[in-house]
């Protein structure tokens, strides 16, 4: 991909009114979903994947990408104004955004957060444009052994990071996802597994109903469980920040951009972790760390740049490996698959223009989100006052239509409902949802590649541990598990006991 090919794709989109409208609509829908607490980026993408199924590939992808960028950016509005993050990615933004609003600087906080988001997204997308083709070349060297470990690596890492206080539950959610993905005809021999003679189960659980159920329905139930009212107490004046104000924080912008992109590439981790790590790093390196949490501009910029840079980072493994870097990216992967663009190492070979087209759509979407965000501040604040309980019945109808639309099967709606209840119960019991969905997506990859690899070596598992990339992926996965269990503490304790025994003797 060259800058010229990127420019050509960008101009092509700009010259196509349908694409421009698709990007603008997607961006606005994304901002709305992002800013309303309870409606997340993943939910928006899950719903729209089904709803845009009838549109052409280009237009559908443009809507989804613009929604993704809009939702991650839009969440800062509620974080600043009402101290509730619109999406989990903006939790870190609340820490300094809300104190700024309390000091009558809400407009400045919104303007800075939107600008930092824009710069973060552009940073991540630049990384996507540079590194996706390079990683794609590396991915071509992957065999079945590496793809199997990649799936396990994704689950282990996502399980550890999305359930930091109890990684066991994160891993269990991931393995449950893998297990549920085995329902239906198996990918090699078309043998019916766990179908019990039911024709509907032969195709397995369709991805979109699973995603809509786990993220959408689960969230609907969570919102309806509570009964909260939102109050906006602030005034809004000049939103667009001065360039000097932004430029003097260039170190935080670049550092958070890099952190967000790198975290984005880690399977299943996502924007919220990117924001927290960026925020924490900014606080550690700041000359005035005492201001963090009391309305620090540095903290606000770092968190926003980090979570938005994660978008581009999370898309890199989607396009090159077929592994999602975050929950919304998982839906994007599903959408690309549904529209016949199988993400993975062969994407750039089978569809040479797709990556540059996606990058161009990202750039266009980022600019659209920026323009809409700074021009429609006051009407959007009014939308924020709509009670979430009033929106949930409509969201449920959209979830039903989205699940039904892909195959026009009522069974998919039941699957959505069942996964919604499952997701809600798991969340209530402290299990994270991201590893479950990641496991479900990576299930076929793990299943087919483990059996294919064993067939190639006549049952010898040695290459799983001796091939270089395979060995690295295995080692990282094993170390991650070991580091989060009681084993290191036990070993240290034993060593200390042995040493003290020797000293005593």
């Amino acid at each position, binding site marked *: 991909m060259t800058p010229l090919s990127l420019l050509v794709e960008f101009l092509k989109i700009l010259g196509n009114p349908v694409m421009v409208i698709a990007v603008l609509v997607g961006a606005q829908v994304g901002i709305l979903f992002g800013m309303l607490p309870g409606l997340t980026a993943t939910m928006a993408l899950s719903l729209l994947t*089904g*709803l*845009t*199924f*009838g*549109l052409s590939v280009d237009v559908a992808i443009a809507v989804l990408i613009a929604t993704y960028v809009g939702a991650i950016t839009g969440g800062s509005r509620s974080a600043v104004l009402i101290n509730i993050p619109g999406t989990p990615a903006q939790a870190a933004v609340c820490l300094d955004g809300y104190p700024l609003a309390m000091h009558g600087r809400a407009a400045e906080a919104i303007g800075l957060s939107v600008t930092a988001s824009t710069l973060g997204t552009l940073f991540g997308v630049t990384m996507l444009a540079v590194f996706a083709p390079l990683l794609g070349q590396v991915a071509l060297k992957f065999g079945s052994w590496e793809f199997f470990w990649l799936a396990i690596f994704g689950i282990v890492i996502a399980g550890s990071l999305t359930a930091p*206080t*109890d990684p*066991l*539950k994160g*891993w*269990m959610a991931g*393995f*449950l996802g*893998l*297990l549920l993905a*085995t329902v239906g005809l*198996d990918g*090699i*021999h078309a*043998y019916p*597994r*766990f179908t019990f003679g039911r024709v509907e189960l032969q195709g397995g659980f369709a991805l979109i109903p699973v995603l809509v159920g786990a993220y959408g*329905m689960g969230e*609907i*139930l969570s919102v*309806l*469980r*509570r*009964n909260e009212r939102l109050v906006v107490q602030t005034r809004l004046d000049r939103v667009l920040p001065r360039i000097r104000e932004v430029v003097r924080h260039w170190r935080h912008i670049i550092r958070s951009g890099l952190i967000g992109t790198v975290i984005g590439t880690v399977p299943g981790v996502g924007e919220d972790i990117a924001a927290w790590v960026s925020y924490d790093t900014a606080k550690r390196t700041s000359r005035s760390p005492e201001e963090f949490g009391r309305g620090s501009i540095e903290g606000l910029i770092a968190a926003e740049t980090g979570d938005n840079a994660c978008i581009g980072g999370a898309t890199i493994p989607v396009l090159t490996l077929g592994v999602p870097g975050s929950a919304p990216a998982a839906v994007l992967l599903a959408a690309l698959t549904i529209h016949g663009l199988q993400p993975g190492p062969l994407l750039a070979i089978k569809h040479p223009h797709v990556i540059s087209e996606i990058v161009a759509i990202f750039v266009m979407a980022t600019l659209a989100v920026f323009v809409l965000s700074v021009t429609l501040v006051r009407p959007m604040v009014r939308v924020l006052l709509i009670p979430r*309980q*009033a929106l*949930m*019945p*409509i969201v*449920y*109808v959209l979830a*039903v*239509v989205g699940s*039904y*639309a892909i195959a*026009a099967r*009522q069974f998919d*709606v*039941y699957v959505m*409902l069942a996964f*919604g*209840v499952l997701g*809600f119960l798991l969340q209530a*019991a*402290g*299990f994270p949802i991201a590893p479950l969905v990641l496991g479900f997506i990576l299930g076929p990859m793990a*299943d087919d590649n*483990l*059996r*294919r690899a*064993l*067939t190639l070596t*006549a*049952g010898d598992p040695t290459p799983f541990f001796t091939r270089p990339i395979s060995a690295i992926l295995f080692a990282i996965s094993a170390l991650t598990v070991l580091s989060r269990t009681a084993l290191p503490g036990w070993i240290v304790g034993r060593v200390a006991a042995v040493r003290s025994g020797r000293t005593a003797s």
Partner: protein
Amino acid sequence: MARGLMQQGESVVPPPARPDGRGGLGDVAAGGGMALLSLFFLINALRMPASSALWTWQNAPGLVPAAIGAVLLSLSTVLTARGLRSHRQSPTPVGSLPAWWSVAMNWGAGRVVVALAFALVFTLMMGRVPFGPLTAVFVFAMTLTFRGTTAAKAALIGIATGITVTLVFTRLFLVPLP
């Protein structure tokens, strides 16, 4: 009913959680449920043919589900054992049925059950009743119940949603509706 739900929701208190995020009996229940589910998958995977004219054990269809089922069963056992140990060390009061009921109601279980009942009825009626009117009635009933607004306002929201959803998806997005 609407007022009752609203009043219930206003005093929502989160369920008691342990500081480390690990919840004794809750973990026992979750671990037990997961163990049963994984055992179900494991047994059924082991009943699949290990070899045939088409495959050997290396690429048998039951290999991966059996392996994952075994891993999940082990993890579930660890979670259950840990939950039991944690409960023994600092037992949470189990309480009588009314105490459980009170905790569940404060947590919002009543609202969840009502929401699920609405969703289930809507889903079961799909295909039997035209989608537009069904959507209008569903949104009306849900809005009235959970938002506690006036019947006229809820009806207006319901009718507007029914018409908009039907028109937008059938005409604009060309999506088939049930």
